[in-house]
């Protein structure tokens, strides 16, 4: 049985149920605002957003896998590419680019020029230090964890802070393989 060929991000995006992006953007914004009022501390809000992202990620990954037909990635490089090209596309309808690989291919940057989360957003002075999009980092972290990659995701650039793009640094910490004894060798050639 030859496995079904992986589908392109656009193809999937075209196939999945879609909704008006404004609804999404504003809902997210409203959440952030509510969190800001409830938690007061910007740091707390960042944490909370990341946590929410994580919770989303651990569920979303399956949908991603199911609908994208991507088979197991050879290595972290490929994983990153898939996230950037397929993952982002299929959910947010935008693609990211992957750069800044470090020597041992354990960390890279995902770069988003276009980010539906931040349409209309402008950080008031009161919210300096807020990582508005922190939910994304959470999602990625959560999703990768489900496919046995412990990662650390941090913001390098943030348009809301005047940078020219959004840059997420994804650093692969380790392969969690406890519950997958049979996956020991999966990345052996990496």
């Amino acid at each position, binding site marked *: 049985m030859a496995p079904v060929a992986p589908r392109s991000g656009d193809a999937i995006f075209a196939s999945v149920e879609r909704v*008006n992006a*404004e609804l999404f953007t504003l809902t997210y914004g*409203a*959440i952030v605002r509510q969190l800001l009022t409830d938690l007061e501390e910007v740091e707390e809000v960042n944490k909370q957003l990341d946590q929410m992202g994580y919770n989303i990620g651990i569920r979303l990954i399956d949908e991603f896998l199911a609908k994208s037909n991507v088979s197991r990635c050879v290595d972290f490089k490929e994983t990153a590419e898939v996230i950037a090209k397929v993952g982002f596309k299929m*959910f*947010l309808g935008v693609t990211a680019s992957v750069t800044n690989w470090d020597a041992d291919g354990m960390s890279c940057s995902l770069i988003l020029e276009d980010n539906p989360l931040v349409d209309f957003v402008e950080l008031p002075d009161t919210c300096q230090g807020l990582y508005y999009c922190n939910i994304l980092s959470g999602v990625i972290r959560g999703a990768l964890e489900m496919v046995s990659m412990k990662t650390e995701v941090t913001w390098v650039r943030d348009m809301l802070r005047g940078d020219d793009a959004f840059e997420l640094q994804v650093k692969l910490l380790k392969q969690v393989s406890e519950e997958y004894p049979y996956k020991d060798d999966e990345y052996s050639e990496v």
Partner: protein
Amino acid sequence: MGREVSESCVDSLLTEIVSTYCNGFYANKPELAARRIEAIGYQVGHQLSERYTMERPRFSDHLEAIKFICKDFWSELFKKQIDNLKTNHRGTFVLQDNRFRWLARMSVDPSSENSSSPQDPSTMAENKAAQAVGMHLYFPCGIIRGALSNLGIPCAVSADISNLPACDRNNITKRNFDPCLVAPLTAHCELS
């Protein structure tokens, strides 16, 4: 049609809002959680209404505004209109969406609710379930209220989930033949 994102983005956001506020911050104070969730919806509604009324003339009366909510506004959000609008002409409007997307994926399992007490309390489970779903409905209610009050119609919006998918057992059979599932939302707007 403007920019779009995958539906699951919004769905998972919703799920997270609810779980964050119901299980996180206000685990033991559902009414507070509800208020927060509603507030989030309110803001969204408030903003969107301003957004979607941009090209259209202003409303001269309430009915127009509410019609707008049922038609244009709703289809902007859900790609479908409200299926049924009723009013008692005394300031109460009933909006009904027979296939409310945000309920389409929900199935509440009563037995999961009352794992502790296996015997009977299906009723209790029922309304626990209802309550859980209710939490998810504060958001759309908020949206409607926000939109209306931005259009100069202060009102109270409540959702009625009496006939929620998994809440009544008897129409499962019916469903089996009919792949598109019924997920009705009924929103009552009390103009104040």
